[in-house]
């Protein structure tokens, strides 16, 4: 963990890492989405730290964990729209660097942008809420030969989902043994696109860099 995520030693604190998700992921939108998709598709209740839904940055110079306690960036207004108090009276200074600063990363701006992380996050939350199986279903990891891809099944009385995620920065092929589900049709959940039905042969997929799929496995046509 330290090797991968704390190139800057100041990011370490005690046994943890005091960073927000976006800086941890190098502000790479694909990696942020991948981590969120993994979080949302695992059992239990996912928790998103405030500001991570818009890709807010941090300020690890502030000491202790204060670097991730900066004011929520609501808008491009003074104090990021968080408060009308004079800036020097804020509990913590707002993030104002060129990459993560409130002028560019804020809720108001992302509300207006159909391709923003906030809109993406909102749709993913809605989708996850629609399927209780994400929170309460069983999880069964598959064992593909390609170790750069993680694949698992989520199952409840009502639903059967297949989640596949490419943890690598380059495209990956994967063959999954889904013969137990022969005849079913994987329907990609975000776009609601039906993929080819599952047969007896290994099911072949390719995933782009840090790509992921969520599939509903639907019964075949009668």
């Amino acid at each position, binding site marked *: 963990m330290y090797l991968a995520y704390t190139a800057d030693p100041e990011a370490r604190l005690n046994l943890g890492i005091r960073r927000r998700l976006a800086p941890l992921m190098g502000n790479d939108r694909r990696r942020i989405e991948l981590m969120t998709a993994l979080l949302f598709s695992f059992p239990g209740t996912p928790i998103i730290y405030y500001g991570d839904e818009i890709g807010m940055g941090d300020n690890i110079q502030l000491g202790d964990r204060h670097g991730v306690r900066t004011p929520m960036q609501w808008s491009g207004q003074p104090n990021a729209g968080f408060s009308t108090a004079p800036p020097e009276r804020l509990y913590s200074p707002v993030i104002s660097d060129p990459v993560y600063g409130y002028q560019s990363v804020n809720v108001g701006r992302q509300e207006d942008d159909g391709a923003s992380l906030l809109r993406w996050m909102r749709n993913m939350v809605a989708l996850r809420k629609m399927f209780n199986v994400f929170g309460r279903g069983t999880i069964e990891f598959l064992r593909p030969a390609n170790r750069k891809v993680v694949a698992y099944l989520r199952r409840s009385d009502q639903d059967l989902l297949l989640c596949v995620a490419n943890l690598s920065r380059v495209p990956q092929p994967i063959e999954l043994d889904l013969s137990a589900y022969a005849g079913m049709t994987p329907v990609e959940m975000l776009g609601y696109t039906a993929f080819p039905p599952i047969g007896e042969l290994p099911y072949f997929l390719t995933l782009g860099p840090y790509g992921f799929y969520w599939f509903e496995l639907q*019964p075949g046509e009668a």
Partner: protein
Amino acid sequence: MASTGSSSSPARPEADPAPADLAVGLVTYNHARAAEAIGQTVRTVLSARPAASAHRILVADAGSQDGTLERLRGAIGGGELVEVPFTAQTGDVLDLPYHGMPGRARALRAILREAADGGAQACVVLDAATAAAGPAAAEALCRAATELEADFITPRYARHPLSGALIHGVVYPLFRALYGARIRYPAASDFACSPRLLQATLADPIWETERGQSGIDLWLSATAAAGGFRLGQVPVEPMAREERDAVDLATTVRQILGFLFTDMERRVPAWQRVRGSRGVASLGEPTGAPAGPPDVHVAQLVDSFRFGWRELQDVWAEVLPPLAILQWRRLASARPDGFRVEDALWARTVYDFAMGHRLRVIARDHLLQSLAPLYLAWLASFAGEVRQAPAAAGEERIERLCLAFETEKPYLISLWRWPERFRPAKIRR
């Protein structure tokens, strides 16, 4: 808050009623002229039942001022008639729903609650107009309530495809695609239901809401279909229906589709899991030929659509994608004799309006009413195809339309799950 005349019913028995096998409910509103016929229907139906069976006749009147209740008492027999009190609201009468029954949901709940409290094994609710038209529908429903093991039974009216075309062209295909149940008349105001369905629905707040007063029948159908209840259908012979005060098309579209679209938002997990559709248990096959086609003037319908195109294309552009706008524009210049609206275009148009409604791209009422000319275009196309065809061919045509709605449903789900994909021709900033 106003109170209807029925809230101080003199005919309501004071003692607890004896358990009844069957409760027959009537919702009335200014049906004095039809009271004798309604009474005749009820007497005919109940006299045909086994002597050992017990029944109750429940009536909830929505505040008739023409002496409906007095005449009904005379027609049915005051001793047998249980007038169920309910509290109507002033607004019920001011905004008359398309079905012509103010406060219908409140009245209906009063009947259903009385039936449930009375321990009825089945409750048959009759639309006053249907009952006035003869005993066929009532008999069929009562028989089905006894013989079919179903929680919710609706009539399958024998109607010409051009009669009630809004049902054939939008309500039935959309309902069927959403909930996967082939309930041919999901907005029927005649139905039979089981105690199980009553138990599941009576506590819902919908009965008191404003939207519930116009859409309660659709709501019951959707609840039964989406809730896994056993469904049944019973063919009903052709009959002449009492003419009602006509509500204009735009208002009807606004009320019916407004209800369906709003209801969709509350049942997302249910309808997004449904693929295709399944048949509904039926007691018998449709018999008898429906009456001939009503007067439909294709050229006038096309003219109405063209007028709508001129006046409303800016509104449509806020809902429909560029390709659909292009297709409708072509249709606006098409000749009436070859006027055809493709099923896929119509299905997607309805789905786009559902999305526009959900996202509130413009005022919802305005949006819904603007669909009326597009519906008239579809109707012109449909009429051109089925006007001269036998009834069976009309049903086949409706079946093809339903399949198109089912085929295009992934388009709706895709938009619904990712609203940013909803990209109408004109995007409001």
